[in-house]
């Protein structure tokens, strides 16, 4: 499965994402390459990752400039054709700014940049990046952001449509106000589009694929393994934290 990782000026998790798909998960059949934001064609890819960082220095709003980069027109075409797209942190912000995902990421309630390990419950929505993770399982990943407060003007509709994919929870899996790091509506850490093929989340799965590096052990691996199983078209269950 070939992953394309978009690189904007100011991306800084692009190499981490590339490492996951091109090195760490190469034995599982993954490969990846970087795609420059000025390109207008994705080339032959099976999935797109919009990585984290501070594209365009977060000028105006996080993700606002990157959303209008030349490559984003190609990402939109790819997404509209049903291609799997994963936006991580700044990538999530970019997907919201570009209209590929609903809602917006506002300044954290605490006004602080938060760098912490968090737990997230994976909701039951079938997406390329979560279908193999048993619904209700909670996984550990890290967050590192100042604008992560998920806001949606019609939150009830988003909930009703089942577009919430990840929710911040405690280490015991309880979705509570105490587990909400940034003031996001309904503890939302990640959402998908109506079709389910575009997913965005604030936590960093790419930083949690090898036990050696900490940041949640290997729980983040499950998102990428889900995508690989999706591409193969085989039913699968992949790991994650304790139920």
């Amino acid at each position: 499965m070939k992953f394309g990782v978009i690189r904007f000026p100011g991306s800084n998790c692009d190499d981490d994402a590339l490492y996951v798909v091109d090195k760490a998960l190469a034995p599982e059949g993954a490969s990846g390459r970087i795609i420059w934001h000025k390109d207008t064609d994705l080339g032959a890819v099976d999935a797109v990752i919009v990585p984290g960082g501070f594209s365009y220095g977060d000028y105006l709003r996080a993700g606002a400039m990157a959303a209008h980069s030349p490559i984003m027109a190609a990402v939109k075409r790819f997404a509209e054709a049903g291609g799997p797209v994963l936006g991580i942190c700044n990538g999530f912000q970019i997907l919201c700014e570009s209209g590929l995902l609903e809602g917006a990421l506002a300044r954290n309630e605490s006004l602080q940049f938060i760098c912490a390990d968090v737990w997230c419950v994976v909701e039951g929505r079938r997406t390329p990046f979560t279908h193999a993770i048993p619904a209700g399982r909670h996984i550990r990943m890290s967050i590192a952001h100042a604008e992560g407060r998920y806001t949606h003007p019609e939150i009830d509709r988003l909930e009703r449509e089942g577009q919430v994919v990840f929710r911040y929870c405690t280490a015991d899996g309880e979705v509570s106000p105490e587990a909400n790091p940034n003031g996001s509506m309904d503890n939302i850490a990640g959402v998908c589009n109506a079709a389910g093929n575009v997913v965005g989340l604030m936590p960093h799965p790419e930083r949690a694929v090898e036990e050696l590096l900490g940041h949640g052990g290997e729980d983040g691996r499950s998102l990428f393994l889900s995508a690989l199983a999706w591409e193969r078209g085989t039913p699968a269950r992949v790991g994650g934290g304790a139920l």
Partner: protein
Amino acid sequence: MKARVFVTLKSGVLDPQGQAVQKTLGRLGFAEVQDVRIGKYVVIELDESDPARARERVNQMCERLIANTVIEDYHVEEVSPS
């Protein structure tokens, strides 16, 4: 032409910056402060002599980039000769 654009969070959206400023103003003795909202102020100079057309273009700019209308309101205050 010169346009002045104000961008603020929509009234229903929590503004933690505004809250922090409000609290500090209270500590400074400005007890009458009831609410503070923080926004952005953008000045745009255009090569356009027709005010109506300039305003229309600036509105388009706001919709497409200057404001995120999911959470922000914008207000084009003035379109005047620079």
